[in-house]
């Protein structure tokens, strides 16, 4: 018997008792939808946490803090930095030191001082430093500044008090700034001037991901290290390694740890988090599968009734040469059809519910909690893998629940069926 003819049979059979089939499909759709929705909460929360972790950070980033020697941790030395740069899969290395000072453009002076990041421009750009405007510095007389740099500049009155109404409102790109570097005398602990540098702003950094973060930093070439950190005052660097591919981050981290470096990467955190969420997802899928199993009782009942009602038809078909396999496949196809309709409806409903929940939950949380949830907060997320797994479970359970009635159909005795004894 051809597949199309079996489908035609199934369609005819399903049309014979539409209301019963509808209720069974509805139960299957509800089971499938429950399965998807309950697991989607784990996916949504995981995605929200990952988004939060990745703000202002890259998945390929590894922070190296110190080197363990014996029982203690020591600051990284130049020889360590050279070694780190040559680790396999390391694409770039950002080595930053922080200097303090004051910046001015004409009469406008930085209100709260200026934080200067001293680093290698070429490595910073390779490490993913992104500009909203302009270009990377080409020499040590050029600089890039944070997105909110201009907002930190204001005029001062004769008493050196800040005039808060006189904020710099021009475009700083192309402007020449004066950076007065400051340091502390280690002996007297008094503030000392380390020099004054004229720099041209050639680029402005991207706006920070977190809305509450303001970036007024300026970037200086690492050629200023000797001036800004004279003698033995060179502070420990903040070191970030950028790995060529996300899948190599764990390997590089492991290698560094085995070489006694103290490291942290977002990927490691995400991996640990993934494990927790994997257990959570499996648990929720298990709970959701119970709903599908309950729905399968409906399918079993519907199919059993269908077999009983069609016993005479089955007997006639067997009498004229219908193979038991054909009979079984028709009934299995019918339970698969019920499952498929349930899955389709359940999936569509789940996506709609998920969108509704994601739209409704943040305002509810805002009204209940003091603060706002993060911008990208998702309470429910339905990745395609969840849809496929749920559809697979629902369809599998639907077919399984149709197997016993289908087997019963093949065992129908022809003579009893023809005598209307069944």
């Amino acid at each position, binding site marked *: 018997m051809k597949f199309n003819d079996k489908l035609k049979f199934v369609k005819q059979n399903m049309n014979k008792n539409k209301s019963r089939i509808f209720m069974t499909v509805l139960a299957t759709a509800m089971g499938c939808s429950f399965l998807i929705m309950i697991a989607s909460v784990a996916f949504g929360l995981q995605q929200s946490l990952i988004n939060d972790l990745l703000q202002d950070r890259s998945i390929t980033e590894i922070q190296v803090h110190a080197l363990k020697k014996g029982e203690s941790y020591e600051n990284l030395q130049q020889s360590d930095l050279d070694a780190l740069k040559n680790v396999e899969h390391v694409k770039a290395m950002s080595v930053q030191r922080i200097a303090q000072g004051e910046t001015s453009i004409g009469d406008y002076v930085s209100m709260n001082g200026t934080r200067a990041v001293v680093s290698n421009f070429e490595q910073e750009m390779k490490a993913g430093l992104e500009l909203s405007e302009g270009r990377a510095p080409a020499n040590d007389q050029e600089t890039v500044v944070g997105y909110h740099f201009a907002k930190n500049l204001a005029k001062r009155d004769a008493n050196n008090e800040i005039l808060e109404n006189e904020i710099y409102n021009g475009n700083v790109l192309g402007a020449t700034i004066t950076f007065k570097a400051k340091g502390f005398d280690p002996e007297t602990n008094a503030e000392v001037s380390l020099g004054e540098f004229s720099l041209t702003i050639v680029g402005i950094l991207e706006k920070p991901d977190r809305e509450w973060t303001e970036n007024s930093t300026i970037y200086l070439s690492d050629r200023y290290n000797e001036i800004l950190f004279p003698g033995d005052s060179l502070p420990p660097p903040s070191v970030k390694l950028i790995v060529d591919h996300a899948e190599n981050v764990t390997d590089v981290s492991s290698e560094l740890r085995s070489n006694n470096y103290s490291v942290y990467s977002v990927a490691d955190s995400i991996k640990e988090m993934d494990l927790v969420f994997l257990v959570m997802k499996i648990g929720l899928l298990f709970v959701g599968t119970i709903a599908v199993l309950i729905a399968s009782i409906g399918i079993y009942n519907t199919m059993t009734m269908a077999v009983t009602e069609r016993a005479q038809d089955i007997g006639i078909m067997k009498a004229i040469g*219908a193979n038991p396999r054909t009979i079984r496949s028709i009934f299995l196809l019918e339970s698969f059809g019920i499952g498929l309709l349930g899955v389709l409806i359940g999936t569509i409903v789940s996506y709609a519910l998920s969108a509704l929940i994601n739209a409704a939950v943040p305002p509810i949380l805002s009204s209940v909690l003091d603060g706002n949830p993060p911008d990208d907060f998702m309470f429910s997320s339905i990745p395609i893998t969840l849809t496929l797994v749920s559809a697979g479970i629902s369809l599998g359970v639907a077919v399984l629940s149709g197997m016993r009635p289908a087997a019963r159909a093949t065992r129908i005795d022809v003579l009893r069926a023809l005598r209307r004894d069944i």
Partner: protein
Amino acid sequence: MIQLQQIQHAFKLGRKGNERHVPVLQDINLTVNKGEIVTLIGRSGSGKSTLLHIVGGFLRPTSGKVHIADQDVTAYSETQWADFRRIHMGVVFQNFQLIPSMTAYENTELPLVLQGVAPNERRRQTLQLLDQLGIASYADHYPSELSGGQQQRVGIARSLILNPPILLADEPTGSLDSENEAQFLELLQSLNRERSITLLIITHDDKVASIGNRTLRIEDGQLIHPSDPHRLEVPKQ
């Protein structure tokens, strides 16, 4: 074409563990040749229908051998029987046994569907056969909309659609009036003449039995062969 050797059959009756075996057929030996019409007569409960069910593969004999179309089908599984029956034999039932939710056309077409014949070819063959049997105009009618004679013709059409060499008929005129019965018997004879179909007909009706080249009587589960194969021996009721 059909050969039964030492067929015995007994039904198990009663509750499990307390069953008793009731013998229905004893030492049946029967050969039906190709193109022959054999009618089998007997009282109600004599075992004639059981014999037909064994030939049709609906019952497995307690002992003995069944050969049909040169194949030993005695130990065939249900699946093997289904395929064998579809290809080698058509079955006509007393109560027509049409599927009520299918039209005359769909009932007739069903064996072709089970055989996996392409839709266009199915349509051609079905309409041609319905036309030959004079019921083409009722193709779209459901069984409940047909007379007994028309329903039996649909049943015949369904059993012949795959051109089987053997036709088994179990009390085929039991639900027909005398006029339809006569037409039906004429149809069976013409099918035998034109298609050389081998016919094994179970009946208790003299008129039906009269169309057989041979008529055999079954009594208390035993086959009684008449001394003159062309003489009809009908037991007195």
